[in-house]
């Protein structure tokens, strides 16, 4: 009798341990991803960056200044080239607006444009709007470890939650274990085919943290296409209020 009970107890403990271990691991995975996301964004952030769009036959570079508050608000001011200078993009939650100084108009981007490429790049308007999607819309699981660019990384698999409004069937992230920044991401479609690859590199110290300064988004199926985002300056947790992110402010931001 006692023997049987002991056996049962041992089994129970093993199960509980395993369970909590798995839970802990999953929790860890989500936390890791959240940490990486927060690291990029901070409570607030400001940056100066340039985006180069590469295509077979031509390429274009756009310079910009950005401001963000959490994941819900941000503002982008285009500073170069001349024909695009002065344009401002504002995001408030799910909505996006565009200020065009050349025609003195603020235009709200309707649902039909949300899937369009932002400024001709490999990022869509949707991508810009749903920045925190990787934390909220997916369940996370640590697959293992890999070394990317000399950094020891967690390899994390993201699976969309049942009702999540996301197009990816699977995402794989490589996040540096110690430094917590994202170094690589792969985006997969319904058929399990790789569609987009994101490579981050060139780690530098920005303000109070270390982050990769360069981000490349590569649409894998199309040859010769790439968008490179390069951050020249980044500051975090500057005092930015929600009121900064307003349509009126779009016209005056410098």
């Amino acid at each position, binding site marked *: 009798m006692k023997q049987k009970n002991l056996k049962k107890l041992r089994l129970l403990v093993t199960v509980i341990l395993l369970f909590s271990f798995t839970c802990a691991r999953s929790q860890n995975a989500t936390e890791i991803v959240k940490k990486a996301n927060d690291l990029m964004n901070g409570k607030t952030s400001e940056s100066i960056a340039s985006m180069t*769009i590469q*295509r077979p036959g*031509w390429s*274009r570079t*756009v310079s910009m200044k950005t401001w963000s508050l959490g994941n819900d608000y941000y503002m982008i001011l285009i500073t170069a080239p001349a*024909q*695009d200078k002065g*344009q401002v993009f504002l995001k408030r939650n799910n909505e996006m607006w*565009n200020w*065009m100084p*050349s*025609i003195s*108009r603020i*235009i*709200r*981007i*309707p649902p*039909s*444009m949300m899937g*369009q*490429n932002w*400024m*001709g*790049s490999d990022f869509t308007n949707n991508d810009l709007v749903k920045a925190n999607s990787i934390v909220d819309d997916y369940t996370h699981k640590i697959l293992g470890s890999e070394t990317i660019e000399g950094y020891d990384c967690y390899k994390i698999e993201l699976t969309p939650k049942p009702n999540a409004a996301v197009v990816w069937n699977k995402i794989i992230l490589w996040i540096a274990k110690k430094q917590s920044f994202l170094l690589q991401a792969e985006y997969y479609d319904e058929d399990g085919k790789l569609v987009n690859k994101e490579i981050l590199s060139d780690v530098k110290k920005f303000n109070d943290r270390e982050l990769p300064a360069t981000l490349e988004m590569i649409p894998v199926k199309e040859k010769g296409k790439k968008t490179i985002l390069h951050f020249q300056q980044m500051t975090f947790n500057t005092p930015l209020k929600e009121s900064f992110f307003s349509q009126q402010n779009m016209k005056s931001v410098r």
Partner: protein
Amino acid sequence: MKQITKLAWRNLWRNKRRTAITLASVLMAVILAVAIRSFQKGVYENMISNAVRFSTGYLQAHAKGYWEDKSINNAFTPDAHFDNVIADDENVSLAVPRLESFALASSGPHTKGVEVIGIDPAKENKMNGLAKKIVEGKYLQMSDDGILVGDGLAKYLELKLGDTLVLLGQGYHGMTAAGKYAIQGIFHYPVEQFNNGIVYLSLTEARKLFGTEGMLTSVSLMLNNSAQLDKTAQRIQSSVDTTMEIMEWQKMNKSLVQEIQGDNSGGIIMLAILYLVVAFGVFGTIHMMTMERKKEFAVMVAIGMRKMKLMAIVFLETVFIACIGIAVGCIIILPVVFYFHNHPISLTGAAAAAYQQFGIEAVLPASLQSSIFIHQGITVLCIALVSVFYPLWYVGRLPLLENLKQ
């Protein structure tokens, strides 16, 4: 061989009345078959001509890859060589250049996605009568910087003549395309989508907007002779740069192709029914003719003509009649078809009204395509050849001498 031919030929003229009657049945078959097919095809040609006029033209020249991805980045710069090839081609009656792309049209409270088409106003009007569709304001000139808007769109955006419309979109190589335009004219098309989703700018203005100096997204070609479509397409394709693609309307308007095919299959059944009726006429005549000549055949065989020879003669007679009948039939029906090709039958009633609403002529024209005559001629010839089996079989079965007693 020569002897048989001579005999066959003389036989025909020996009994003129019999020959005439048989000839007449073949004639009728050809005339009716050609008439029906010609009207059927005429209707299709009309449908196609109207559909292509209001869209892509019979042929469209654009950069390779443009049709699959109609982004402004797939615009092309037409060089002198290209212009010359198009201008010099004997079958091209009109070349209509366009620069088009998608953009947001905004009037403040409302925003809507629209297709912006930069046009050469004179040529565009020649192709589809756009100028006549203007209900308010005036049509564009190449030098104008105003915009033409459909009445449905104007209503939705709550804009009137003279108001400003803002266009925002993606220009060449990712630059932002943005512009303000005064509404110079409001048009009305019977087709909803045109009214609600298309705006017209002069080519000059459109190029400014999208940053595509000197470029076009397409050149639509209207033809003098649409039957020469394939040849013309090949001719032009081989002369222009390999970066360009000359696309035929069938590829660009699949639903029209489906519609015509669907209608055509019904039409073929109708034609089959007609053939049954006329084939029987031909067969009946030949049958009766055979019965009539029972004695004649018997005599020939009795005096020693080999059956094979007789059969050959009878066969040739029928072939002659068939060929003459087909030729004469075609000659008779040709002017009729020609007349109705140039003066089509007018449709009446509700159908006509509906067509007119769409800006399409409500007519039933006849088609002049030579293939009609060839196909029907061959079919009638086949009918005659099948019918001739009866007399051949009869001759083959002839017992000698017995029929003389009749």
